[in-house]
């Protein structure tokens, strides 16, 4: 079975706004792949193109070897798609929804129980409740069940964890891991940088472009600068002081700490300490840290703007 997704020079614009700019991407069979980026990065447009809901301006893509535009009928049979907005019938019960989508794909729930069992057991207690009355997490589980009921080869999930609380989010990712073991190719879009670490490979996206494409550890390893974390009692003052430092390369708030990189390669920490002391901040805790995906994203995004 070869459930790959290959995308070549794919572009799409709405009027003057170009939503996707010549995207190239190959997703392997059975991979858990993440599209990471904020709103407006082009994730949803890419998904709708792959789901045969939109036509590209230029470029092409193939899913399981089927050409996206010409062979859209084949693709619609092997694709599971979960849109960003909750898209089930709110006035139908959980079971009625699932039953309906089973009949749409000419199949029955019983025949596909193996595929959905792990998820179904969690929502089965509420099977007679209207879908509109479920909590956010439960809705996502039901939507996932409905997207899986025809045993798709490729699963596209558009921001499945947005607006869902932390508990449900972590449960959702557990379920995706379980699905991956069944050999389905899964592509997840998310605005949460921290979820990148749960994918095998990710594409960091912004404004219709891919900033970086690698495994999460690969992306982190490519962070070039030495990164320091500063903590002081008055975080905001610390931020202002560091921002005013002549050799600052980047300085970003991370919760109660500030992440800092310097423009100089041979940079001596004590200089900076002295500078802060001169500004009246004596007790500053400084340590060198490993970059996270969010650090990488911001660095890449700044590089990208500078290049333009």
């Amino acid at each position, binding site marked *: 079975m070869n459930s790959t997704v290959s995308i070549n020079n794919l572009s799409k614009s709405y009027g003057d706004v170009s939503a996707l700019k010549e995207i190239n991407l190959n997703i392997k069979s059975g991979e858990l792949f993440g599209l990471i980026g904020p709103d407006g990065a082009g994730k949803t447009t890419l998904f709708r193109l792959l789901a045969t809901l939109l036509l590209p301006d230029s470029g092409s893509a193939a899913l399981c070897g089927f050409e996206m535009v010409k062979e859209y009928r084949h693709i619609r049979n092997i694709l599971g798609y979960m849109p960003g907005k909750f898209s089930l019938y709110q006035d139908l019960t959980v079971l009625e929804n699932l039953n309906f989508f089973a009949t749409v794909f000419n199949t029955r729930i019983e025949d596909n129980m193996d595929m959905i069992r792990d998820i179904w057991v969690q929502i089965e207690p509420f099977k007679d409740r209207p879908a509109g009355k479920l909590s956010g997490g439960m809705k996502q589980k039901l939507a996932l069940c409905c997207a899986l009921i025809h045993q798709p080869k490729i699963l596209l999930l558009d921001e499945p964890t947005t607006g869902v*609380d932390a508990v449900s989010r972590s449960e959702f990712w557990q379920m995706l891991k379980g699905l991956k073991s069944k050999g389905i190719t899964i592509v997840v879009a998310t605005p949460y940088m921290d979820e990148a670490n749960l994918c095998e490979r990710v594409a960091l996206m912004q404004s219709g472009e891919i900033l970086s494409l690698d495994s999460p550890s690969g992306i982190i390893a490519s962070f070039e600068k030495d990164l320091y974390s500063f903590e002081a009692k008055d975080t905001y003052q610390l*931020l202002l002081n560091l921002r005013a430092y002549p050799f600052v390369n980047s300085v970003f708030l991370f919760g109660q700490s500030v992440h800092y990189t310097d423009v100089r390669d041979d940079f001596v920490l004590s200089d900076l300490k002295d500078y802060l002391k001169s500004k009246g901040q004596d007790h500053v805790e400084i340590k060198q840290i490993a970059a996270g995906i969010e650090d990488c994203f911001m660095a890449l995004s700044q590089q990208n703007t500078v290049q333009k």
Partner: protein
Amino acid sequence: MNSDKKVISVRNLTKKFGSFTANDDLSFDVYQGEIFGFLGANGAGKTTAMKILCGLSYPTSGEIMVAGLDVYKQREELKRNIGYMSQKFSLYEDLTVFENIRFYAGIYGMSLKDIKLKSDDLLKKLDLVHARNKRIGELPLGWKQKLAFSVAIFHNPEIVFLDEPTGGVDPVTRRQFWDLIYEASRNGITVFVTTHYMDEAEYCNRVSIMVDGRIEALDTPEGLKNKFDAKDMDEVFLRLARKSNYKE
């Protein structure tokens, strides 16, 4: 930065809808200039409590003072002393930047002359002078949010309530947004943030975490992480929420 002056004081706040208890005996204080995170899962009772604090609904019982005003008796004065912003509702898309500012400031009784002066300063600060007469709908999301926050504190309220302010924004813009929040806090405005995004919680001075209508934890993010031996707020939240009788 933080003073000892209590801006919000809640004692034994309970709100019931029929037999369902949305807020169960909440007590907490928020101090002037503090950035206070009000966290909880969907349906934990955050919105209910915030509505009461904003003077939009009455509590079933409890003593609540906001900005030195009683939420039972002084609701109109209360509304004049608070600002509000949410991701869902903030500015009118079909009005220009200045028209939005003028509208909101007008609501709070500012004179047109004051509005003009102050809005010029504001637009300069936000680097939005060129967008003064552009419609909000044409602006990128990040700019909208920064502007929305600035409008919410335009009339110098004592407290500003933020309802999930930065979901979906790119990391750089989000930090610019928090810059504004820190600045407001430094100027003595208390910031009350409800969210279920745990990474937003990390930016707060103190956070409370609500589970099933009760406040289960209240401390600095650092303190909470230490107490629950967790590496980030996400983990703190998971511990707390799982401990509860989490059910549909």
